[in-house]
């Protein structure tokens, strides 16, 4: 946030968390947050950080995600920022093309294609003794996946990457109107929307085997999407598939490089990848907060949060709450009963979770198996600005070779 420059003395843990200097390790600050159930911030918002509270509130129908009710959140990203019934309708219409009950097995069927992509990305660094995990694997892999899934031409990647970065990593919101995108972010959004509009128009009547074609040509039980709805849904999917899984893979590799016994564990037992990735989503999650607006007065931890307030739910703190997780600050590859908050919960729970899990498993397994003696060259690595979608900008690693 613009008012919290690194040079300001932060008054609250949350202000310190926003400071880019805290990006590499926000966890001690989360611990401070959890000392109180509710923090009333100077900007008027309320911060909630304990597992039980976050898990309950994220499923509480008295909280809204609509921009007009949620003074701090709300990028206006399709159904991510809609309440029911509009949310449910659009999510159902989109989900139809992505999983059960209408399209079961779609994600699983992608396994061979995903494996082939990771194989070729790792093949491409053969002969190098230094790689950047972000640029070489974590970024291109999920971006290619979501582009292919939607039917966005891979060769347009530089264009939509610039737009996505402009929207997600924009340094501050419009100070005149909190919740609004800045002008540069708005411009990027408009350009991306226009690009999507063109693609969708091409697919209308000339379908290919991709999700845009199915969205535009399908007439399911909920009818047909309006063109505007289709554009914002596809922008949401592109961004959600773009800015999250990259961090799962980078954070995962970083964690394994810092704790080499984990790297060895996954290398020796690739079959544990599902539980391993689940724990990664708890321990170093790609999405740290989410925002809601109170539709009426709420009691939380003995305090009244008045109607109209913004709430910041700190998912990443809840997932590290020792009241819920034993040895919460330790990575336990086979942690039982691991109901982390990495994908959120309730009606907005991550739509792409099955795909994201599969991507994470394949990428981490293959890097653990094929990279010979990987060593972290910079610890902590440089981080991206965004405190919510938190992850390294680059992850330089030295290697002694690449196995076939």
């Amino acid at each position, binding site marked *: 946030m613009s008012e919290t420059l690194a040079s300001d003395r932060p008054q609250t843990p949350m202000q310190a968390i926003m400071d880019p200097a805290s990006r590499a390790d926000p966890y001690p600050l989360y611990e401070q947050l959890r000392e109180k159930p509710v923090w009333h911030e100077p900007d008027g918002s309320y911060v909630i950080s304990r597992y039980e509270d976050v898990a309950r509130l994220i*499923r*509480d*129908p008295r909280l809204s995600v609509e921009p007009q009710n949620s003074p701090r959140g709300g990028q206006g990203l399709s159904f991510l920022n809609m309440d029911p019934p509009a949310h449910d309708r659009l999510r159902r219409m989109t989900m139809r093309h992505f999983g059960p009950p209408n399209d079961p097995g779609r994600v699983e069927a992608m396994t061979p294609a995903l494996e082939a992509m990771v194989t070729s990305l790792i093949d491409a660094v053969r002969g190098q003794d230094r790689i950047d995990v972000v640029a070489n694997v974590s970024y291109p892999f999920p971006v290619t996946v979501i582009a292919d899934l939607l039917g966005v031409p891979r060769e347009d990647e530089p264009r939509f990457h610039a737009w996505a970065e402009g929207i997600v990593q924009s340094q501050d919101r419009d100070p005149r109107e909190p919740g609004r995108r800045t002008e540069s972010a708005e411009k990027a959004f408009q350009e991306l929307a226009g690009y999507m509009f063109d693609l969708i128009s091409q697919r209308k009547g000339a379908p290919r085997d991709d999700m845009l074609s199915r969205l535009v040509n399908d007439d399911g039980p909920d009818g047909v999407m309006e063109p505007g709805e289709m554009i914002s849904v596809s922008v949401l999917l592109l961004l959600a598939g773009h800015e999250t899984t990259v961090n799962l893979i980078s954070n995962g590799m970083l964690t394994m490089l810092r704790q080499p016994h984990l790297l060895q564990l996954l290398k020796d037992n690739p079959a544990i990848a599902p539980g391993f990735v689940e724990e990664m989503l708890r321990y170093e999650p790609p999405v740290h907060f989410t925002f809601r607006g109170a*539709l009426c007065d709420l009691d939380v931890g003995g305090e009244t949060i008045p109607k109209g307030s913004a709430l910041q739910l700190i998912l990443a703190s809840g997932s590290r709450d020792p009241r819920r997780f034993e040895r919460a600050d330790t990575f336990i590859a086979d942690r039982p009963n691991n109901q982390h908050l990495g994908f959120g919960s309730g*009606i907005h729970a991550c739509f792409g979770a099955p795909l994201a899990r599969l991507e994470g498993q394949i990428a981490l397994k293959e890097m653990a198996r094929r990279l010979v003696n990987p060593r972290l060259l910079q610890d902590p690595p440089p981080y991206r600005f965004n405190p919510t979608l938190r992850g390294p900008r680059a992850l330089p690693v030295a290697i002694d070779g690449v196995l076939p």
Partner: protein
Amino acid sequence: MSAPCDVVIVGASLAGLRAAEALREGGYAGRLTLVGDEPHAPYDRPPLSKQVLSGWVRPQETFLPRLHPIAGAWRLGVAASGLDTAAQRVDLADGTALDYDRLIIATGTRARPWPVEAEAGLGGMHLLRTLDHAAALTAALEAKPSRVLVVGAGFTGSEVASACRDRGIEVTVVEQGSTPLAAVLGPVVGGHAAILQRRAGVDLRCGVSVTSLFGDVQGRVRGARLSDGNVVEADVVVACLGAVRNTEWLAGSGVQAGPAGVPCDAACRALSADGAPTDDIFVCGDVSHFHHPLAGERRIALEHWGNAINQARVAAANLLRPGSATNATALPAFWSMQFGANFKSVGLPSHGEQVMIVQGALETGRFVAAYGRGGRIVGAIAVNQAQWLPFYEQQILAGAAFPPDWRVVDQPQGATPQPAGFPGATPGAAYAGA
């Protein structure tokens, strides 16, 4: 009283099995005997009217998972016929007897039989409570009857009708009340259930009763005469008239028992004739009759899967360590699947005086209805909206106001409380409710 070393459990179904497991899990190392009049190992009943009838699961695939080794003696296929509390002895129908120092009563309920004996004996007449019933009814449906008549549209009857439509079988449902599920959810939500039935092609007749059944010369049922003068022809009739509590074997035993069940306190202890709780006899599951804070002074019976499990745990805990557990804090919860819709409730909808749609809309088939009594919310039912129920559970436990003063997403404009419309205490038209 000495420590337990000889526990007998009568009723070897959900509650009995889970009580036995909880005893062992709680460290009980003494003798343990389970008596059940059915010949089968414990099995699960909810699938019988759902996946089994629809053909997704075979009847013999419903056996209950075992959560803990029991190391007990099983007396299956033999009923308990009497109880002598002074001698601490259970008499069995085969003439033998079992001594106990602690007894758990978990005899549940049975399907209310068709009231006219001659008609009840017609071929093609079915009840649905047991595995054998489900196997027989499934076989009858597989034989592609020309029409099935379901008498009683509580949860069981509605689910049977739903399974028939899944199989493409013509079905007529006759219900005395004004809508299906009226006795358990009231006519407002029941009206939606009626729409679901009709949309699925059910020939639904409400406000009507069956006056008699008629058969052919071979003694097979051919159809029914209705109170409105109409006749329905059907070659399969399923009587879904609710449940009768299995308490006859307790007559004259010194513990209270009757048509309403076996009364017990919040520790699941049975009551002796003077109303004082016994310290050696416990009750759990569908047969129990107990106080719940939500229901005030009235005792209730809950024919709910979750309640059977919960009371089994409470009974076992108090048997081993008196006073260590209570059933008073658990909120009743219940579910049903019919006509592609998921019904899920918390609290006690049937105790509501008023009902109000609090999220969604009846017309969309996705909604939550809340039930209020005395200015408090006492229950909620979600139809295809189960994700919100934890919130309503919290509100019920917190004694939140009714009509609610909150604002929630998807709140209908201008919704107001309406009379819940329960016909009073109708004895068991279905397996849920009081």
